[in-house]
C-alpha cells in the first residue's frame, strides 16, 4: 500500500474549509445583510404587557404546537403572513408543527374571557382538544398571555380603528403593571361585526389587508342597506353595535329593538317584481341588484355550492354524506333574514356542523357580496333571473364593472 504523505491532507482540508465558509457566507450572512423587511406603517410595536405575554408564550412552549405563520394554502386562516409582520419580534416563534391551530391571526377573534377560560380548561370549550391546561399560570401571566394573543394578526396590532381613525384596533389606556408602574394596556373591541367591518372597508390603507378585486362601493352599500349609511345611523348606533364585541343573533336583535336608529334600517328587497318595471329608474335599480347578486354568485359557486347546491336548495353533492344536511335556502325563514343576520351567519359559521367560519377566508366585502346573493336566493327561492346571466369566475371582477373596480396589485412577499 502506498504511504500517503501527511501534508497531502492539508490542501483538501483547506478546500473544504473554504467551501463551508462560502456556504455559510451565502446562506447566513447574505440574508442577514440583504433581507431586511421595512418597518410597516400600519403595525404598532408591542406594549409592555404584550411583550410579557410573548415571554410567557415562549416559556410555556406554546410554539411547539401552534405555528405563527399563515401560509398561502391556509385558506381558512385569514391574511397570509408577510415578512413585515415579524418586524418587532426579537426572536422568532414560527413553530414547526401544528398540533393546535395557527395563531398568527388569532387577535380580536375571541373575547379575553374566552382565551382565559380556554387556557385554564381547554376541554371545557373544545371537547377532545389535546391542549395542556394552564391552571398554574398566575393571574398576571394569564392576562399578559391573553394580551399577546389579542395583539396578533390583522385584527391585532395591524388593524385600523374605524371609530377613532387611529392605527390600532384597540384603545390604549393607562393601567397599573405588575410592578405598580403605569403602562399602556390595549383594550380590545374586536369580534365579528358588520358595522365595524364595513367601516374598516371604507377606511384608508384597507387594500393592504386583503388581496381581492371586490370593492365595497357606495353603490353596494345602498343596495345592501337601502340608503346612505350615514343618513340612517347616528354615531351612537354605530357605537352600540361596535361595543357589543361578541354579538350573538339575539344581542343584535335586542340592540335593534332598543335603538330606534338601528330599527330604522331599511333593507332593499331582492324579490323579482311580478312585472318588469317600465320606468328607467326602476329598471336600472333592478339591473344593479341583479348584477351585485350575480357577483356574489361567483363566490357562492366556488365556496358554497358543493354543499348547498348550485341553486341554493341544499342539494350539493357533499351534503349527502353529512350528519346534518346543508341548509336549503328555499325554506321560508330565509326570506326574512336581514343583512346583518346573513353577514353574521356567514362569518361565524354554524358550530357543530361542517359550515366553516368564512371570516377566516373571505374578506368582509366578499362576504357582503355573498350576502346580496343569499338574499336574492332566499327571497326568490331559486336563481330567478340570474339563471340567464353568466356567473362570474370567483376572484375576477364582473365584466360590467371592469372600469370602475381596479384590482389591487398583488403585494410581494
Amino acid at each position, binding site marked *: *500500500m502506498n*504511504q*500517503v504523505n501527511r501534508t497531502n*491532507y492539508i490542501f483538501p482540508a483547506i478546500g*473544504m*474549509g473554504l467551501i*463551508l465558509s462560502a*456556504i*455559510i457566507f*451565502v*446562506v*447566513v450572512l447574505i*440574508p*442577514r445583510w*440583504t*433581507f431586511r*423587511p421595512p418597518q410597516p406603517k400600519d403595525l404598532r410595536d408591542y406594549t409592555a404587557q404584550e411583550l410579557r405575554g410573548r415571554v410567557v408564550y*415562549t*416559556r*410555556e*412552549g*406554546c*410554539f*411547539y*404546537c401552534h*405555528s405563527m*405563520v399563515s*401560509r*398561502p*394554502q391556509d385558506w381558512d386562516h385569514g391574511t397570509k*403572513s408577510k*415578512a413585515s*409582520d*415579524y*418586524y*418587532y*419580534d*426579537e*426572536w*422568532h*416563534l*414560527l413553530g*414547526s*408543527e*401544528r*398540533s*393546535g*391551530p395557527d395563531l398568527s391571526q388569532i387577535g380580536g377573534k375571541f373575547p379575553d374571557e374566552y382565551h382565559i377560560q380556554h387556557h385554564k380548561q381547554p*376541554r371545557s370549550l*373544545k*371537547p*377532545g*382538544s*389535546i391542549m*395542556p*391546561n394552564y*391552571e*398554574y399560570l398566575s393571574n398576571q401571566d394569564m392576562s399578559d398571555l391573553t394580551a399577546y394573543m389579542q395583539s396578533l394578526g390583522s385584527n391585532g396590532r395591524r388593524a385600523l380603528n374605524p371609530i377613532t381613525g387611529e392605527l390600532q384596533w384597540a384603545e390604549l389606556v393607562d393601567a397599573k403593571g405588575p410592578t405598580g408602574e403605569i403602562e399602556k394596556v390595549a383594550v380590545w373591541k374586536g369580534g365579528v361585526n358588520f358595522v365595524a367591518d364595513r367601516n374598516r372597508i371604507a377606511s384608508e390603507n384597507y387594500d393592504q389587508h386583503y388581496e381581492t378585486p371586490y370593492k365595497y362601493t357606495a353603490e353596494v352599500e345602498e343596495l345592501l342597506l337601502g340608503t346612505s349609511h350615514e343618513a340612517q345611523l347616528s354615531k351612537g348606533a354605530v357605537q352600540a353595535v361596535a361595543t357589543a364585541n361578541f354579538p350573538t343573533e339575539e344581542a343584535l336583535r335586542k340592540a335593534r329593538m332598543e335603538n330606534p336608529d338601528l330599527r330604522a334600517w331599511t333593507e332593499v328587497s331582492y324579490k323579482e317584481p311580478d312585472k318588469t318595471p317600465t320606468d328607467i329608474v326602476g329598471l336600472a335599480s333592478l339591473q344593479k341588484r341583479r348584477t351585485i347578486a350575480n357577483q356574489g354568485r361567483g363566490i357562492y359557486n366556488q365556496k358554497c355550492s358543493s354543499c348547498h347546491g348550485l341553486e341554493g336548495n341544499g342539494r350539493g353533492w357533499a351534503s349527502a354524506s353529512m350528519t346534518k344536511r346543508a341548509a336549503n335556502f328555499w325554506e321560508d325563514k330565509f326570506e326574512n333574514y336581514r343583512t346583518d343576520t346573513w353577514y353574521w351567519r356567514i362569518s361565524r359559521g354554524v358550530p357543530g356542523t361542517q359550515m*366553516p367560519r368564512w371570516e377566516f377566508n373571505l374578506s368582509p366585502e366578499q362576504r357582503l357580496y355573498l350576502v346580496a346573493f343569499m338574499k336574492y336566493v332566499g327571497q326568490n327561492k331559486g336563481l330567478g333571473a340570474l339563471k340567464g346571466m353568466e356567473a362570474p369566475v370567483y376572484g375576477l371582477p364582473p365584466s360590467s364593472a371592469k372600469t370602475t373596480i381596479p384590482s389591487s396589485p398583488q403585494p410581494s*412577499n
Partner: protein
Amino acid sequence: MNENAGKVSLSWVDRFQDWLSIEGSASTRFLVSGALWGLVGTTLGLLAAVEYWAPDLVRGVAQLSFGRIRPTHINVVAFGFISMATVGANFFVIPELCRTKLYSEKTANLLMLAWNAVIVLGIFALTNGYTEGREYAELPWWLDIPLFMALLLYIVIIWGTVLNRQEKQLYVTVWYVAGTTLWFPVVYLIGNKIFFSVTGIGDSIANWFYGHNILGLWFTTNGIGLTYYFLPKITKNPLYSHLLSIVGFSTIAMFYTPTGTHHLLQSPVPEWLKAVAVISSVMLLIPVMSVLVNFFLTMKGKWNMVATNIPLRFFITAMWFYLLTCFTGPFQATRWINWYLHFTHWVVGHAHFALLGTFGFVAWGAIYYVLPRVSGKQWYSRRLATAHYWLTLTGVIIMISALTVAGLYQAAAWEEGQAVYRAGAYVLSPFMAARAFSGLLIVVGQILLFFNMYKTLFGQEGSLDESTEPDVPIGGKA
C-alpha cells in the same frame, strides 16, 4: 488503580487526579453517561407522548407540562444521549486508528464532567422555563457558553490525538470526526446567537440553519464516521471503495449546510434561499447514496453476521433507517410535497427516523462494541442486549408508522379545509396512543441496557476473554 491500592495516605486531590487519568476511563464514562441520558431522555419523551394523548394527566405542575417536557426531551436525547455516546466511541476509535493513546485522558474526563453538568443544569433550566424558545437551541445563554467551551476542549483532545499519531494514513473515520470538531462549533455559535443575532423573521433562517446542521454536521458526520470504522472492523471485510468514501465526505459539508431553509418553504423568507435549500436537499442524495453503497457492498458475503453479532446488528439497522430517512428527506423537502406535509406529524416521524432510528442505533451499537474493550469487562448478558434490540426496533417501527400515518391524515384533512382542531381532536387519538406505547417499549429497552451495563461494570469480576465473546469478535484491520 491497582498500583494505588497499597498506598494509604493520598489526599483527595491526588485521588481525584488518579480517578481522572485511568486509561480508557473517559471513553467508558462518556458511554455510560450516554446510556444514562438515553434512559432519562426517552422517559421524558414517553411522558410527553402520554400527555399528548391524555392531556389532563398532569395538572398544576408547571415543570411537567408538555410545553416544557418536549424541549427537555429533545435536548437530553440530542446533547446527552447521542452526543455523549458518540463522543465516547470517538475517544476509543480515534486513538485506535492513530495507533496512539488518547491525547489527554485527564482533559477528556474533565470534559465528561462539564458535559454532564451542562445536561443536568439544562434539565433544570428547561423544566423551569429558562428557554430561548428556538428549536434545538433552547438552552439559555449561560449554558450555551459552557457547551461551546466544551466543544473547544473536544477539538483539543481529538486534534491532539490526531497530531500525535503513529499511523501516517488517516482513515475515513478520522476525516469525519476531526472535521466535525471544527465545523460544529461554528454552527453552534451561529445557531445559539452567541455573537450572531438577528431579529424578526431573519431569526428563523439562522435558527433553521443551525437546526438542520446539528443533524448534518454533528450527528450525521459522527454517526457515519463511526460506522465507517465499525463495519469493516466487525465483518473483517475491507472497505468497498476508497473513492466513494472521498465523494461522500467531500459532498456532505457542501450539500448539508444550506438545507435549513427547507423548514420555512411557505414562510415569507427570500425565495432564492428556499431554492438553494430545496436544490441542496435533493443533492444530498449524492453523499447518502455513496455512503450507503459503500457500506452495503462492504457487507458483501457477511450479511449472516447480522444474526449473531449484536453491535453489527445495530449498525446495519441504523443504516437501513438511514436509507429510508434520506430518501424521504429530499422528497419531502421539495416544494409541492412540503406544501402538503409541512406542520404535520409526518415531520415529527421523520425526525425520529433520523435521530432515534439512525443515530440512536449507531450510538447503541457503539456502546455495545466499545464498552467491553475500554472497560476490559465482558457484557453481562447477551439476552438482555438482544431484548434491548428487539424492543427498541419494534418501538421505533410502531412510532414512525403511527406518526407517518397520522401526518397523512392531518395533511388530507387540512387540504380538504377541515380546521386543525376538528381534524386533530378525535381522529389522531389512536395514533398518539400507539406512539405512547412505542415510547414505553423504547424506555423498557433503555432500562435493560442500563441494567446490563451496571452488571457489566460493577457486578462481575474478570476480564475480557475473546473466546467467550461471540457477538463482538475482535480483529480485522480497517
